[in-house]
């Protein structure tokens, strides 16, 4: 049972790198606690900026810092960062081309019982419509570490979304695999059906792979950690080689990973497909696991859908 949340991994990784790279900066909107950034703020006061509860301001200030050669990481709840400050993200980060990393914390349905104001299940749809902005959801703590290291080196605007609670591991260790922005990872190979997942749903897809194996179905699991730019080749290869595709995401069924995959397949290699995610409604209240179960983001449901697609 993993006890380390991804936000803590980002803090520790940035702290490690910030000792040698004084341009790394972390910004918080009264969110240093929920972002697990308090240790960073304490160790690197000159590389930390508190802006108070002001999401538009945090993005604008970060763009100004980036323009002056800094490498700002904005840490703010995904629900606010992706909505309240979307115009600053569009104009000051993407359009102006500033090197700002936007880390949406407590994303998806992490704030389970707090209601739709605090859920961020439209953020991927919004972020991926903006030209020049990359969109990344790391699967677990190990990938989060590799991603953070890669993003410090990457020049350009990126929206990252992570959840609040520890996620079960999808990788063995931080050395298990590599993170290349825009390059999907085939977690399990298979020939009958492909499950494309991102973020916390990668673990669900891996569990579905095992359930399908027990039922005699060979499934491929793709970790699409970068939703934009999408690894179109991995999607097309999966469609050609397995003939059936299911996407699963902690996001509205509209405009997210499923839509991104469908945009590629519909035009270039249509195959039977299912999109699993949060229904187009204010999401039901509950713990992440309960909400996932409710909307069919579960190994059982993925197995059921795969068998249905295969006509078994």
């Amino acid at each position: 049972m993993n006890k380390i949340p991804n936000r803590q991994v980002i803090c520790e990784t940035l702290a490690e790198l910030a000792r040698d790279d004084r341009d790394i900066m972390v910004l918080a909107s009264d969110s240093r606690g929920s972002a697990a950034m308090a240790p960073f703020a304490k160790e690197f006061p000159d590389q930390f900026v508190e802006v108070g509860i002001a999401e538009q301001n945090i993005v604008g200030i970060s763009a100004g810092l980036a323009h002056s050669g800094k490498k700002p990481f904005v840490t703010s709840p995904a629900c606010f960062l992706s909505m309240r400050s979307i115009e600053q993200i569009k104009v000051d980060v993407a359009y102006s081309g500033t090197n700002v990393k936007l880390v949406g914390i407590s994303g998806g349905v992490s704030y389970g019982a707090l209601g739709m104001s605090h859920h961020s299940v439209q953020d991927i749809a919004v972020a991926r419509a903006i030209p020049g902005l990359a969109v990344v959801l790391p699967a677990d703590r190990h990938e989060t570490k590799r991603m953070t290291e890669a993003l410090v080196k990457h020049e350009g605007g990126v929206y990252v979304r992570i959840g609040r609670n520890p996620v079960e591991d999808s990788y063995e260790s931080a050395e298990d695999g590599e993170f290349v922005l825009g390059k999907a990872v085939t977690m399990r190979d298979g020939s009958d059906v492909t499950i494309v997942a991102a973020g916390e749903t990668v673990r669900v897809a891996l569990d579905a792979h095992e359930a399908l194996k027990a039922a005699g179905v060979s499934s491929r699991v793709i970790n699409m950690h970068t939703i934009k730019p999408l690894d179109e080749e991995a999607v097309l290869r999966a469609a050609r080689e397995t003939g059936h595709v299911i996407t699963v995401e902690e996001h509205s069924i509209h405009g997210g990973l499923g839509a991104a995959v469908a945009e590629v397949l519909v035009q270039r290699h249509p195959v039977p497909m299912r999109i699993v995610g949060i229904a187009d409604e204010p999401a039901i209240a509950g713990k992440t696991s309960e909400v996932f179960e409710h909307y069919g983001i579960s190994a059982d449901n993925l197995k059921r859908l795969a068998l249905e697609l295969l006509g078994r």
Partner: protein
Amino acid sequence: MNNTELKAKAIQIRMDLLRMIHGAKTGHTGGSLSNTDILTALYYRIMNIDPARPKWEDRDRFIASKGHSVESLWCILADLGFFSKEELATFSQFGTRLIGHPNNKVPGIEMNTGALGHGLAISVGMALAAKRDGKAYRVFCLMGDGEQAEGSVWEAAMAGAHYGLDNLVGFVDRNRLQISGSTEEVMGLDPLDEKWAAFGWNVVSLDGNDIDALVAALERVPAAIGKPTLIMANTVKGKGISFAENIPHWHHHVPSDEELARALTELKEAAERLARLEGQVR
């Protein structure tokens, strides 16, 4: 440049921008005329810049938060040699980089602006970076008065004061008109000086079309140690053209052939008066 030369330059920039807007058949005429004197004082006297090195690390930065009044800025950047004056003819034409808002594909433009209420936060970030790096450059941010209704302006105002950014200067181009009419009728702003002062800024109120007053104030920056400065530049929208001054629809009115000719005549006369005055002084 001395103040008289600056005044002559401001007249020339007004002529350039009117010709450019007339040629392109589009533009924000009124606001560009109101901010011309501010930009002239900054670009030809106050700011440490080098047109040959637009990304020089220690340059002073200018952010046009009221990005729609870009015409005066394009004319000044071309005049200074950031790009060629011939390119001004492409303003707002298909495929141009000289669009109707600042575009950082053009040398001399720091950031893309145009959505109101963004520039001051960006400027706070730049000024904060200078402080953290121990650098001496300053950041100048020009806002509109209609823009003051954007809440994000005040988020940035708070942060500028909180971090004691005395290397940051904000301007409000206080021409008292916005597209629908008087700022005080659209959404009352007064007492605007007091609001900025209450947010912790050092407020200097002056005639923003008076080069002498602008230069005197700007030469004192940082004017208050540990505080950002806000220059309340009381200006006249459409300044310099008798029949455009204080007329709301000149916000983006394009002068006709006849209006252009009259405006250029007026400006030429103003330049001649300035030269005569200078002759008398000498």
